[in-house]
């Protein structure tokens, strides 16, 4: 099985360490991974703004880059959600369908496809607050949501629980959106930033040293809010922890 690694634009540009951790982790888990060099973006920014037509060429490029792989893995719930649910600016050929059906978010790939539950190299002696992005929570369904009153499950927590020394903080509103929302973060910056600050305060007040998430975009926004307001909480992607980062 050949895996195409999709590293979304903001991880590529601002959080390359998370991209490296994702690659190394997949390799540690015995996967044959390749990063196609001509990749850019999945087209979500345009599509989310209503400008779906402007996403057409970007989607076509994405398919040209990734169609040859059996599976595509990305450390970003929001991008994977876009590819799976909304990637329809281009004609839906067999190739496009193949790409859409075989793109996985990192946590669900490890949890559901590889079914790995042990990370003997991982140790993270910190109290973490787990932030599930709305895309992973309510679209990819990697965790139970409070709205439905369903039995508790959490794929990211299941994976993280295997990490030595880790403990979890319990925020008051674990499922509340952090307010990033893509272009929303700038078109409605006041509400967005308020939500972000409320989110980081909730985690901080619950005793979290770190906020950990499968979505870097949420954390980029939350980190911006925390730093501006002096909330002493740090941020780390789940890939970094599972790959063995200690801090």
């Amino acid at each position, binding site marked *: 099985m050949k895996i195409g690694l999709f590293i979304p634009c903001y991880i590529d540009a601002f959080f390359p360490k998370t991209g490296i951790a994702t690659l190394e982790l997949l390799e540690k888990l015995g996967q044959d991974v390749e990063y196609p060099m001509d990749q850019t973006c999945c087209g979500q920014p345009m599509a989310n703004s209503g400008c779906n037509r402007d996403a057409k060429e970007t989607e076509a490029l994405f398919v040209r880059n990734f169609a040859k792989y059996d599976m595509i893995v990305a450390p970003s719930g929001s991008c994977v959600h876009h590819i799976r649910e909304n990637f329809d600016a281009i004609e839906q050929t067999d190739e496009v369908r193949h790409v859409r059906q075989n793109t996985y978010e990192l946590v669900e790939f490890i949890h559901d496809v590889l079914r790995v539950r042990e990370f003997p190299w991982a140790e993270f002696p910190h109290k973490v607050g787990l932030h599930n992005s709305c895309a992973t929570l309510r679209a990819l369904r990697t965790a139970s949501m409070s709205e439905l009153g369903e039995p508790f499950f959490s794929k990211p927590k299941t994976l993280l629980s295997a990490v030595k020394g880790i403990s979890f903080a319990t925020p008051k509103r674990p499922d509340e959106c952090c307010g990033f929302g893509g272009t929303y973060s700038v078109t409605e910056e006041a509400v967005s930033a308020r939500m972000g600050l409320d989110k980081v305060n909730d985690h901080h007040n619950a005793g979290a040293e770190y906020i950990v998430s499968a979505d870097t975009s949420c954390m980029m926004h939350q980190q911006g809010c925390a730093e*501006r307001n002096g909330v002493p909480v740090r941020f780390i992607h789940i890939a970094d922890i599972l790959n063995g980062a200690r801090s």
Partner: protein
Amino acid sequence: MREKPVPHASLAAEFLRDDLHRIFHDERLWGMRQKRDEQMHELPEWQELRQQASRLKEHTLAHLPHYLEQFEQNAKKNGIHVHWARDGAEHNRIVEGILKAHGHSSIIKSKSMITDECEMREYLEPKGITVTETDLGERIQQLDNQLPSHVVVPAVQKLTKDVAKVFAKHYHTDPAIDDPHALAEAQRNAARPVLLSGDTGMTGGNFLVAETGSFVVCTNEGNADLSANLPNLHIATLGIERLVPRMEDLGVFIRLLSRSALGSPITQYTTHFRKPKKGGEMHVILVDNGRSERLGMEDFWSSLKCIRCGACMNTCPVYRRSGGQSYGAVYSGPIGAIIDPTFNAKKFSTLPFASTMNGSCTNVCPVKIDIHDQLYKWRRILAERHEIPFVKKEIMKMAGRLLSQPKLYRLSISGTEVALKTMPRFVLYNYLNPWGKHRELPHPVKETFHSWYKKNRLKKETTAQEGTSS
């Protein structure tokens, strides 16, 4: 004149400036969401109820003409006068006509969203007909000349001190006394004489039952029963989508409504109106006002399933932090953002963008309206109709071009200090500027993942390949 879009972002920013209002509003509504959750946990069949409610509404909407005619027939048999209003203006003329025929000039009215939708007060008041709201929250909003902020708790954006000010102005009470009991008493004292002297009672209604020709009004304050029963003339206005086929279907909705809305098992009063009281007269006005047209919209017809519980508002993190007034519409919050553009796509073009697309609304909705998917669909439609800001459209066009050309894209974010210094040229300028107002930018890094991979992996691969081939 071209109508300006509601400036939701700046109105919301304004609302956020005062900490007292901001915190109260968020916590009050979040409290309602939590109570709703508790009620949901009490009922193991909750998801089944939602499914049933959704199916019943879908069935009814699919056979709307049939059930409407059935309702009309049965209501007439019960002695109810049934009127049909194509739009708000026609509705208001019908009300005016009924009052004129009786020589009446004052209406005591319980809360109804649809009369606000029809702008009834605005139409009747200049004609010398007084309309007095008897629901406490709605009355506060009426006195303050504001639209309802929320479909269930219309004045939820106000603190008691705000109410004290409004009452002081209109009821001449002490503006310094903001004790809720004293305020409620002031309203009671002001409302009683009006209730006793009003010659026409008006209510909205939550459900029309086709098989019985009756309608149901769910309230908590008892004011609707007073408004309906004290005068001899009762006019009820309901949207044509309020129908359920049978009496037994009601159970599903009554069980869901107040649990979803306030987190109480049932409203204090669930009143069934079937025929006029002895010597009295009862009218039902069935209002279309764009509903038939919406029923024909492939993407948006299911918004007609809405039972106006407000659960989507209570759970919406954006609504809780924006306040209902920021939507500039009769219907605010997520449900407002998908139905308001059907009334006026220009004016309400900003509302489908007042969302992070988090999807919480869809999952609390008791009738399973796919609210956040509809927000997404509205965005596309509005962009295609050029109802989004020109700058945004241009930036998206540029982004689309750049992101589809790997070489150009790499060039634009290349250089060592990466993105932050160069990426701003294409995105950060004008459009992304607001990022930094309340947030720090991400930290610059030495190299992108792309260049790391090229250095650390591609070279190795090439070497490895060379190694094997030689």
